């Protein structure tokens, strides 16, 4: 460390630098920003009763928190498993599968059933089907003899493309009204979530989160790649199955709640890596979650207060995320 030779004291900038190097402080700062945004969101522009506004808005905040947690944690974990930082779990065709399931429902039962159906049943069906699909993919391609994560990703991409084409084909044959209902439902919407679903998603995400802490240090080791992790005594297959299940459950639950968000995890995870300044998952995971909350809530506030728009946050995020993805790819290519 740089030390002042005359006074023997560390100069102020260096001290600040040392403080800034501590991931705990960085995380605390993020938490303060996130809480401030929550306060701003709660208490600005209240048209009538404050209690009512807070109650309604807390639902949105909770939905954002859940989505940020599910997307942030699952993307960071997915990056570590695959040893690649420009992928997101959606590469496995999660979102495409979600859209397909919804399309199949509308196709066979009509949009009336989709709108009229008990949201709880719909949510349950989607979550169960998505988790079952991904765990099947995993055990089929990774549990067997071949054990190749890249093969699994590749099959995921191919299946995702297949789902998309199949969905498109079905949607072409839909009644225009049904189609409109469906495409409206397929844009992620964070505001005004269903209360029961929110609590249910919360419980599921929380449960999945609870499984993460014992795996934190193993996740760190997985950063070194499979051969090194196995060499250090990690039971690779079992660990991966656990992590993969956590990722699928989180993605499925949050997608079924708000709809598919493709690029959000990519932004959040990569910002978290550079902001946290460490590879340790104790820090990168909560950092990713908080950055997610800040992005969602900050974006919502800006959209509502500055541009007077509601509801289109997910589109803005996808647009920014898409640009960010291009930036990441181009930067990798330039190296």
């Amino acid at each position, binding site marked *: 460390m740089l030390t002042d030779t005359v006074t023997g004291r560390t100069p102020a900038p260096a001290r600040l630098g040392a403080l800034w190097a501590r991931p705990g402080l960085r995380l605390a700062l993020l938490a303060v920003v996130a809480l401030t945004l929550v306060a701003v969101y709660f208490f600005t522009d209240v048209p009538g009763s404050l209690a009512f506004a807070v109650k309604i808005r807390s639902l949105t905040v909770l939905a954002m928190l859940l989505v940020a947690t599910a997307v942030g944690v699952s993307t960071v974990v997915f*990056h570590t498993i695959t*040893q*690649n*930082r420009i992928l997101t779990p959606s590469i496995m065709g999660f979102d495409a599968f979600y859209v397909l399931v919804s399309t199949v429902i509308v196709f066979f039962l009509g949009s009336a059933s989709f709108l009229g159906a008990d949201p709880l049943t719909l949510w349950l069906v989607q979550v169960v089907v998505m988790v079952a699909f991904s765990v099947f993919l995993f055990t089929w391609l990774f549990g067997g003899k071949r054990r190749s994560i890249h093969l699994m990703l590749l099959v995921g991409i191919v299946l995702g493309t297949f789902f998309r084409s199949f969905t498109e084909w079905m949607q072409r044959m839909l009644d225009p009204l049904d189609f409109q209902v469906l495409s409206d439902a397929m844009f992620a919407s964070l505001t005004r979530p269903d209360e029961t679903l929110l609590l249910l998603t919360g419980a599921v995400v929380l449960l999945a989160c609870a499984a993460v802490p014992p795996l*934190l*240090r*193993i996740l*760190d*080791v997985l*950063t*070194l*790649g*499979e*051969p*090194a992790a*196995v*060499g*250090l*005594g*990690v*039971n690779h297959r079992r660990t991966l199955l656990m992590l993969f299940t956590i990722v699928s459950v989180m993605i499925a639950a949050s997608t079924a709640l708000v709809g598919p968000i493709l690029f959000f995890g990519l932004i959040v995870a990569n910002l978290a*890596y550079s902001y946290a300044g460490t*590879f340790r998952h104790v820090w990168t995971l909560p950092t990713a979650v908080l950055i997610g909350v800040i992005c969602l809530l900050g974006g919502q506030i800006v959209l509502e207060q500055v541009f007077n728009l509601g509801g289109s946050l997910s589109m803005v995020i996808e647009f920014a995320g898409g640009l960010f993805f291009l930036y990441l790819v181009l930067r990798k290519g330039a190296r």
Partner: protein
Amino acid sequence: MIVLDGVSKRYNGHTVLDEVSIAFGAEGVTALIGPNGAGKSTLFGVVGRLIRPEAGRVAVDGSDVATARSSDLAKTLAVLRQDNHIAARLTVHDLVEFGRFPHSKGRLTVTDRDHVDRAIEYLALDDFRNRFLDELSGGQRQRAFIAMVLAQDTKYILLDEPLNNLDLRHMTEIMKLLRRMADELGKRVIVVLHDINFAATYSDRIVAMRDGRVVADAGAAEIMRPEVLEAVYDTKVDVRQIDGRPVALYYS
């Protein structure tokens, strides 16, 4: 000892290991040589429980690799693979700390930190301790990885082509270091080498493989003969005595 008993491995009908039975891991340095595709890396993979063989069994100090607890094996046997690509940015210190994972499960005790410090010192990496791996030269990087393996504090250390992409000076440096680790720390070093002159100079025993079989297994003096080397590599090799040491000349 690491004992392989009739170990076979096939990839799509192509035999990579053909009923290999061998015991190695005595004190000192054992070099594993042979042409590309001879099965050297696969052999390491089988011993390091990354590859499951179709037949045969591997035992490390009497415990079967297939059934023993992975975390226990990690305390007796350390493997350094050929390419170590890491997506995240790690410092040398972070990397070496990982070597303690089998013992500490990530919660480092005073003993663990002591091991880390000693490994870093042993590989003369004190000045680079807080540098990121991508800021190091090839030689320094390789030393950092060896420090991690050393911190793992195992009886056996397996290194797969640790001299890859290193210049003359660093190759010699690494080989001297492996020799010292065997002599001073009592490590049993097993190393895959391509340069047979390095193998002859620094190892106590040379195991030569070809087409998935062990074709020669002896001290340097017996292996460093034209007819043996030509049979292993299928290319013309001349061996000369220079200052009482056999030197293979395979440049033509």
